């Protein structure tokens, strides 16, 4: 409780700080997003989006796939701490779990906006199509969101001081983490399988039978990168120190994942005789170089150099590049590298699509901020309480 009062005092003394300004901005965006979202639900997709039969997935779906990769922070950190038992990464676990929970909540909200029949979203539980990648993804997202809630409950219980329940949840930590890792491995890879049903639409530089594997590995590099940001930002919010070895190790993990991803992707392009297309430098090849060269290979090399990795500027540049690379990759696969049927009008997102997307992102950022402020996100206190 002492921390809470201390935090409150700090907030009061810095009312017009950049924090207050950005929080107000986020709140405004959230309100605009709610308003736009209600408009979408009342007026329908035709009136509030630029989607068409040829481009029927827009920025909502693209951001969904980006957010699922970013929210991989939750399962990668659970794997690192509860499966691999690498204790030096433990301080970064909770901010990542909370970020994962917010990421998946945003995904669910975006899906509600995107579905033609949001009122029937539960139908996937009633009517199973085991062949459908989207069926598997829906099931896994639902179950994994539940896992994230279970993983986050102790943050509240510890704040409330209900030590008996804290202990009960603590006993669940490892099995729940294993369940979460399994569910995540499934749906992160199945997001790649999703595109295997589009050989006629997706450019050959992206379309490959190993898309599931590429999506899985890229979710690890995105997850570790986002976990670093969540850890550093939550430490800044709470006025805590970050452990250099934690950030360093995570950066190294993300770098190796990014390097592995790059090599696998290049090997696949070589194997499928796509190198001529890769070096043709037409628009498709440029898009791929942006996401792969600038968004995976460069940050991997940067972060593998200890001198770069250990300096904040170098570290955050590398991590930022990886996250931008994932963003580019998911947008390319969903939109830019796709050829719609002839006669499809160009897709320029409608204002409502932008407002709702930004609103949901802003709302989740606010919720995460509140979570960091109100819940027990840094564990040192808990451990003392548990051992005493």
């Amino acid at each position, binding site marked *: 409780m002492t921390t809470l009062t201390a935090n409150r005092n700090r907030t009061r003394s810095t009312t017009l700080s950049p924090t207050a300004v950005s929080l107000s901005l986020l709140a405004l965006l959230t309100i605009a997003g709610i308003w736009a979202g209600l408009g979408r*639900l*009342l*007026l*329908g*997709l*035709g*009136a509030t989006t630029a989607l*068409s*039969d*040829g481009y029927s*997935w827009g920025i909502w779906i693209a951001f969904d796939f980006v957010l699922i990769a970013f929210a991989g922070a939750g399962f990668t950190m659970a794997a690192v701490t509860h499966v*691999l*038992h690498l204790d030096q990464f*433990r301080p970064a676990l909770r901010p990542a779990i909370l970020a994962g929970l917010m990421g998946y909540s945003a995904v669910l909200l975006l899906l509600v906006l995107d*579905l*033609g*029949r949001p*009122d*029937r*979203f539960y*139908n*996937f539980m*009633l*009517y*199973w*199509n*085991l*062949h*459908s*990648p*989207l*069926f*598997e993804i*829906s099931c896994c997202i639902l179950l994994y969101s539940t896992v994230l809630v279970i993983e986050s409950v102790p943050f509240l219980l510890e704040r409330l001081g209900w030590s008996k329940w804290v*202990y009960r949840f603590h*006993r669940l*930590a*490892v*099995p729940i983490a*294993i*369940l979460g890792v*399994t569910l995540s*491995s*499934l749906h992160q890879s*199945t997001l790649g399988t*999703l595109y*295997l*049903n*589009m*050989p*006629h*639409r997706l450019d050959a530089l992206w379309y490959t*039978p190993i898309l599931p594997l590429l999506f899985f590995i890229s979710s690890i590099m995105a997850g570790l990168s986002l976990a670093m940001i969540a850890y550093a930002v939550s430490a800044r919010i709470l006025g805590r120190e970050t452990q250099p070895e934690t950030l360093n190790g995570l950066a190294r993990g993300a770098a190796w994942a990014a390097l592995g991803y790059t090599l696998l992707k290049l090997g696949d392009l070589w194997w499928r005789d796509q190198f001529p297309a890769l070096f043709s430098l037409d628009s498709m090849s440029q898009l791929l170089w942006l996401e792969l060269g600038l968004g995976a290979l460069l940050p991997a090399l940067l972060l593998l150099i200890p001198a770069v990795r250990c300096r904040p500027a170098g570290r955050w540049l590398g991590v930022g590049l990886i996250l931008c690379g994932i963003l580019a990759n998911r947008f390319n696969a969903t939109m830019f590298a796709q050829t*719609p*049927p002839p006669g499809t009008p160009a897709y320029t997102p409608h204002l409502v699509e932008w407002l709702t997307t930004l609103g949901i992102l802003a709302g989740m950022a606010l919720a995460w901020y509140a979570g960091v402020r109100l819940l027990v996100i840094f*564990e040192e206190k*808990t*451990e003392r309480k*548990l*051992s005493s």
Partner: protein
Amino acid sequence: MTVQADGKLSRRDFLRTAGTGVSVITVASLLAEPVEANEAPATSPWGVLIDLTRCTGCESCVLACKESNNLANPEIVATSLDSDAYSCLETHSLGNGAVSYVKRQCMHCLHPACASACTVGALTKTAAGPVVYDSAKCIGCRYCQYACPFGVPAFEWENPLGLISKCQFCQTQLGQGQTPACAAACPNGALRFGRREELLAQAKAQIETNPGRYVDHIYGEYEAGGTSMLYLAGVPFVDLGFPELGSEPIPHQAETVMNQTPAIALTVASLASALAWFLQRRKKLALVPVETEESR
């Protein structure tokens, strides 16, 4: 210390929990096994042979389609498929002033990607041939629009509770032994309804006896693994806007991966359980001698 608290989870407890998870996944995988239900039907599925060289663009088929399916704007002949048009009539100029009309509708694939992709199984391939749509199941995710190589499923963009619409091969009429509305309406014999195998044989005979009239290609015989709708044309199909597709069914690759889902789940779950147990135990054992050594 959290480590010690972690250590309180006894091996038996842990194995029990992990074991439950693994057995749940095993049972689920056993239940999930009989996925390959799409066996070839006893008789050849129904099909329509569309002879584009006989089509005069009279629009009878498209108008009959609208009427038979009670679609909006029954007097308008669509030039592209949309939620009010299960079928449409395209006009392709062939140069030298000549035009070719192309009636388009769902191809009723033998291995429909839309049905394989559909989240809720609202689209299904019936043994008789039609790929049918159950609007009561559909959640409007629109994955079918991406999976279909022919750009067929259309979405009701103007409906706040929008659904998909597509040609259903007049499945009700088919069930009553009747001809689909479009084929029944054609005055020029450009649409011939029948068993797919027989239509294919007839089409091949037609190409053989009229080599000048047709290009030597029955579109739909092999495209995307074969379709129930078959086309004959006097010019290459690519000039008429038909997509060039291989003979591999579109959903084949995704289904190959999807069928591995139980195996992947089982592998990841057991590997993670084994790793977690082993590493936790190693850490616990490592703690003991270190402590005793220090105390000495």
